[in-house]
Every structure is written in structure tokens, then in C-alpha cells.
């Protein structure tokens, strides 16, 4: 191996360890954050006994889960039952490898580490474990694998609640993946590239994509909620109907693996929202963050962290605010609203981008984005007006506004 390759491998290993540690600790702290946020929204205190203000609660939970008994249902498929938690956990962690979390850091070293030999690296080091050329396609691909863990957990438990949860989860994730993938095509139209670093660079040159592509952002966020099985789309584990769905039969560490996977997925979706629509690690209104050096890297890292944290908070906010959808509502929203909306939006954006760049000849990305933003505002008002009018989705309270006609059977459900 050449010293350059060895230096590259050394840096990659360090980055892997750092990202893995941050994700694992972050996920542990997110369980605490979830409980604290829910307590705050419900006017309670939340966990506050273990450690300062409950800060050691995740550690206590972890110790409890490790020490608990691992149960195996009598008629469960032992192999699949055991690997299912890992199958949902591994894709969730794989995704954290491809998202750039800070500005490239210039690294120059030339050291000899005893018997390992010489390690050399010169030039900027991208602050991402693997800067893949396929970018968000990799994220879509790997997140589509997460469904295996859930479906297999439901099937192998040999329990009707778990099976129903697993089936619901697979159907839901496959359905919303379509809308999620389609919502990213306008991003591809504007950026011209799928790799995350190229998308971040394009947003730095123009405006954050949330403005010219607001509806993409909306569809992606909704689909992201459904993909991570978070409220209002947590049908797979609807506890009032299915106990807890696919992980009903799991206990101890296997059970908490599902939780780690869920929170890791939440972090990934939030990081995706940040990177694709909110400029990634970009600090707005300044070029200083691209100047290179240790300080800009740290500052952009902090900025990325804050943005992701906001979206994680947003996810929790939604969870403790909105009630759960009914299953048929979820499916009709996915197939009859989100997917046609995403398709129509692709058509509109294609036409608009062609008109702006081809016919009007606008070359400045900022001006073009502003025109698209004005267009998006109109579409968004229209879409939200239609969604809010109850044409597609009605609550069960709205179903029988008119009293049933005389002589008609009383229990007609529309």
C-alpha cells in the first residue's frame, strides 16, 4: 500500500469512529430529549432523578436493557427473530456515513507509525466518511433496506400483533418511498448532481433549496415522517390497536436496538432535510465558512449540528402535537395525494426551470431561485388550501355532520 492510501484509510477510520460515537451517544441523548420535550409539552417534569436533571437516564436505561432477560417466543423463527433487530439497525447507521457534516478540513501530515509504516495526507479532507458520487440515491437505497428488519421482526415473532405491525410497516415504507424519491427529482433538476457535496455547494452559490423547492421540502418531510414510522404515521406500532406492533415480542437489548434504529433514522432524515433544503453545513450570508481552516470547519460543524437539532426537535414537536392517522387515511394520503402531487410538481418545476433558464435567460442562481420561490408560494397556498378543506382526508368526527335520514339504518359509515 502506498503511504497516501494508508493516510486515507487512517483518516477514514478516524472519521468512522467519530461519526459512529456521535450517532450512538446522540441517539442515547435523543431518547432523553424526547421524554423531556414531551414532558415540557404536557406540563410535566420528565425524568429528573438520575444524574443532573436526568442526564444519566439514558445510561440507566441502557444498563437496564442489558441486564434484562432476553425472551424468545416459543414458536418464533429463532434465526430471523435474532437478526431482525440488527437488520433494522445496520441500514440506519450506514446512512450516517454519507452526509457531509462540516466544511472540508485542510489536513497535512507525513508521519511514520512504527511497524505500520508511513502515512501521508495532503490537501482538504471532506468532512464526511464517504463522499459518494451517488449521494442521495445511496440514502434512498439503503433506507429502503430498513423495511426488512421491521417486516422480519413482525413475521418471525409468530404473533398476530407483531405480524400486523410488520405488514403495515412494509406497506407504509414502500408507499412513501415513492413519494420521497419523486420529491427529490426537483432537487436534482436544480442542482444537476446527486452528490451531497455538490448540492451543498450549489446552495452556497445561490439560495437554500427550501425557498425555490418548498413543495419538495414539504413532501420530503412528510414522507420522511412516514419512513421513520414517527407520529402521525406510527401505524406499525399503534399501541392502542397492536400493543406495540412489530416489536411486541422483543425484550431487553433487542428491543432497544429497534429504538436505536428509529432514532438513528430520525437523525438521518433530519440531516437529509438540512443538507438538501437548508444548505447543509452552510453558514448563511457569509463566504467565510468556505475559506478553509480549522475554525470554519468547527463553526460549520456547529451550524450543521444546530440545524439538525432543530429538525429533530420539530419531529418531536409533531409527535406530541398531532394524533395518529387511520390506516386507510395513511395509504390514501400516500398514493392519492403525495405521489400525484410530487409528479405534478416535477412537471411544473421542469417547465418553470426551462422557462427561467432557457427562455428568459436568467443566469444568476439567486434571481432564478427567487422567481421559483414566488411560484412555490402560490402552489403551496393552493395545495395547503386543498389539503385543509378535507377533500382527501377527513377525521372521523367530520364524517357524519348531517343526521341520517329517517328510516335509514343508524350506523351508516361513509
Amino acid at each position, binding site marked *: 500500500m502506498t503511504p497516501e492510501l494508508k493516510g486515507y484509510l487512517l483518516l477514514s477510520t478516524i472519521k468512522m469512529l467519530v461519526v459512529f460515537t456521535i450517532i450512538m451517544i446522540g441517539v442515547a441523548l435523543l431518547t432523553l430529549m424526547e421524554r423531556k420535550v414531551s414532558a415540557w409539552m404536557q406540563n410535566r417534569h420528565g425524568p429528573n432523578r438520575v444524574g443532573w436533571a436526568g442526564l444519566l437516564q439514558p445510561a440507566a436505561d441502557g444498563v437496564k436493557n442489558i441486564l434484562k432477560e432476553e425472551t424468545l417466543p416459543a414458536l418464533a*423463527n429463532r434465526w*430471523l427473530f435474532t437478526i431482525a433487530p440488527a437488520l433494522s439497525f445496520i441500514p440506519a447507521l450506514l446512512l450516517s456515513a454519507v452526509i457531509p457534516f462540516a466544511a472540508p478540513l485542510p489536513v497535512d501530515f507525513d508521519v511514520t507509525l512504527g511497524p505500520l509504516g508511513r502515512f501521508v495526507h495532503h490537501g482538504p479532507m471532506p468532512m464526511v466518511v464517504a463522499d*459518494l*458520487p*451517488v449521494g442521495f*440515491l*445511496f440514502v*434512498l*437505497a*439503503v433506507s*429502503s*433496506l430498513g*423495511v*426488512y428488519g421491521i*417486516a*422480519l421482526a413482525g*413475521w418471525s415473532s409468530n404473533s398476530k400483533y407483531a*405480524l400486523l405491525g*410488520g*405488514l403495515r410497516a*412494509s*406497506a407504509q*415504507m*414502500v408507499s412513501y*418511498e415513492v413519494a420521497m*424519491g419523486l420529491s427529490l427529482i426537483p432537487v*436534482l433538476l436544480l442542482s*444537476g*448532481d*446527486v*452528490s451531497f457535496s*455538490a448540492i451543498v455547494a450549489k446552495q452556497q452559490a445561490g439560495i437554500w433549496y427550501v425557498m425555490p423547492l418548498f413543495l419538495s421540502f414539504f413532501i420530503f418531510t412528510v414522507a420522511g415522517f412516514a419512513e421513520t414510522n414517527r407520529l402521525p404515521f406510527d401505524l406499525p406500532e399503534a399501541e392502542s390497536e397492536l400493543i406495540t406492533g412489530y416489536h411486541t415480542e422483543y425484550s431487553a437489548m433487542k428491543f432497544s436496538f429497534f429504538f436505536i434504529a428509529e432514532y438513528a433514522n430520525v437523525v438521518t432524515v433530519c440531516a437529509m432535510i438540512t443538507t438538501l433544503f437548508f444548505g447543509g453545513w452552510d453558514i448563511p450570508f457569509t463566504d467565510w465558512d468556505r475559506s478553509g481552516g480549522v475554525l470554519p470547519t468547527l463553526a460549520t460543524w456547529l451550524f450543521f449540528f444546530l440545524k439538525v437539532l432543530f429538525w429533530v426537535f420539530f419531529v418531536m414537536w409533531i409527535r406530541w402535537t398531532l394524533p395518529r392517522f387511520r390506516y386507510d387515511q395513511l395509504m390514501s394520503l400516500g398514493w392519492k395525494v403525495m405521489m400525484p402531487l410530487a409528479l405534478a410538481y416535477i412537471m411544473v418545476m421542469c417547465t418553470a426551470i426551462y422557462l427561467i433558464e432557457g427562455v428568459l435567460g436568467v443566469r444568476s442562481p439567486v434571481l432564478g431561485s427567487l422567481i421559483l420561490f414566488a411560484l412555490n408560494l402560490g402552489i403551496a397556498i393552493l395545495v395547503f388550501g386543498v389539503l385543509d378543506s378535507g377533500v382527501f382526508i377527513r377525521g372521523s368526527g367530520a364524517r357524519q355532520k348531517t343526521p341520517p335520514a329517517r328510516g335509514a339504518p343508524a350506523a351508516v359509515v361513509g
Partner: protein
Amino acid sequence: MTEAVFYVFAACAVATASMCVLSRSAMSAVLWLTATMLSLAALYVLLGAEFVAAIQVLVYAGAVMVLFLFVVMLLNLGHPTTDMRGPAAMAATVVIAGLLAIQLFALWSYSPDRLAAEIAQAPEFSDPASLFAAGQATRDDAVARGVVGAVAAPLFEVYLVPFEITSILLLTAIVGAVVLAKRKI
């Protein structure tokens, strides 16, 4: 190094594919086939076709196999009691295995020179050499246009008409599936 990685994933693909054929439970067969798809995706990455690899995982491992899994779960096949045995099944096995062996043997005798000669004699429309420059030029192209652009350009420029015909074919298939699945529309 690349060669070693290739052999690892190629061995994985062959092993998981055989497990898919050999396993008795339909559920395990589906999962082994998924593993085969993932190994193939790794091989595509080694060939420099990252886009194809991503689509392989996204479509085959992520969507098609999930539907297979879904069907197997819903049908609840359990453990099959009837295996394919008896003289008729034996004869069919021998014939199919023999045909595949002949195909494999024909492929075995291929050399890069012969492949290049056959491509050179092919009609111009399907000549990949006119679209994909060899070696370094392809890599430069991928760097310049991104991995998606390198695939999209021939697809939407040279092969536009076949591409559109394929999409009409797929649309027909979708409509047909809906009609078959749903009696009353």
C-alpha cells in the same frame, strides 16, 4: 486489491444464490436472494457503475424483494411437504441444468478479443463503443457530468426512442395489472 474485493463479493453472490435455490423455506429463499442482489450491487460498484449499483439496491433489494417478502408473508407458505421428486422432475432438472451448462461453456470460451470483434461487427445502433469511450475517458466523463449524467446522456440522446417505447410497455403492464387485480373499475 480490487481483485481480492471482487472475489469476495463474487463468492458471496454465488454462495447466496445457491442458498436461495437450496433453502426449503420460501422466506429464507427470499432473504438469500436479497443478499445476492446486494452482492451484485457491490460488483457494480467495482465496475465503476455506482448509479447502477444504487438503482440495483433501490429497486431490486428495496422494492421488488420487499414485495416478494410481502407475498410470502401473506400467503404463509410455511414448510412445504411436497418436493419436486420423481422421474419427470428429474428429467426436467437434467435438461435445464444441461442447457445452462452449455451456455456457461459457450461463455467460457469468450476472450476479450472475441468480444471486441463481435461488438465491432454489430449494427451501429447498439454499438456501446460509440457511446462509452473506453477506460479513462469514461471516468473523466463521469467526473464531469456526475454518475447520473453519464448514464442519462446516452439514454436520452441516442436511445431516446427505445427508452420511450419501454416506458409505454411498462405503462401497458401497469394498466394490465390494475385491470387483472381489480375486477370492477
